[in-house]
């Protein structure tokens, strides 16, 4: 009986769930995400032409500037308005990572600067760092062992 209720509930809830406008969401994510990357490309071009960076090293200041901009916009409350509209378009670029960290830090400041800001800053962004690091470790380990075994270049 309870099993029956459960499936009935799932049917009901999937009927009631608002249809996500997939095409429009994807379109918005595409052009806003693309635009953020073009801003990054402009910054990169700027750093290469006006400072002593090359294609390899220009990524660092570019990412740093994008992160600072995103944190400033988050503090002013602008980024989250964009994010509601753009979905993954603002979440996937590195600016979304900065937004996740700064909004967690600002939100929890009422709990104090050590337990609130310090303890919660990585609440949302932590999963990215943890999974990125573990995956990178495994992959680098495999590649290093293969290279030492003389199998891969």
């Amino acid at each position, binding site marked *: 009986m309870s099993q029956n209720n459960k499936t009935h509930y799932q049917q009901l809830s999937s009927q009631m769930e608002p249809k*996500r406008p997939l095409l429009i*969401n994807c379109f918005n*994510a*595409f*052009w*806003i*995400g*693309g635009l*953020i*990357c*073009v801003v*990054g*490309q402009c*910054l*990169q071009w700027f750093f290469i032409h006006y400072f002593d960076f090359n294609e390899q090293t220009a990524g*660092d*200041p*570019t*990412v*740093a500037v*994008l*992160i*600072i901009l995103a*944190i400033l916009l988050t*503090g*002013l*409350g602008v980024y989250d308005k964009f994010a509601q509209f753009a*979905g*993954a*378009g603002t*979440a*996937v*670029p*590195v*600016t*979304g*990572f*900065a937004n996740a*960290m*700064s909004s*967690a*830090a*600002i939100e929890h*400041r009422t709990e104090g600067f050590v337990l609130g800001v310090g303890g919660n*800053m990585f609440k*949302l*962004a932590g*999963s*990215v760092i*943890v999974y*990125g*690091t573990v*995956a*990178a*470790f495994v*992959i*680098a*380990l495999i*590649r*290093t062992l293969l290279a030492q075994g003389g199998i891969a270049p």
Partner: protein
Amino acid sequence: MIFLWAFIVGGLICVIGQLLMDVGKLTPAHTLAALVVSGAVLDGLGIYERLIDFAGAGATVPITSFGNHLVHGAMQEAEENGIIGILTGIFEVTSSGISAAIIFSFIAALIFKPKG
């Protein structure tokens, strides 16, 4: 021309993220974790570097490049110092991004009050 490819490739990576959220019904945290891991895997296979040559910031700005940079730093140090280099080098390249995010998030928490 690189600006156009940056727009297209960067936009497409965001669309993949949107599809994971809408069709795959993943939370944003799951989506970002999946993208970072795929960036790391693509770099392990030597593909991501070619994408960066081709699309510039279109490949370095999305969060997938974080995974790529983690593997890159680890591999660089590992070539010089052996296995221990993986541990010492993993944050070598991403350090500027993570440090900037921590430092300026902290400053933002000092300045701004939560809204709503």
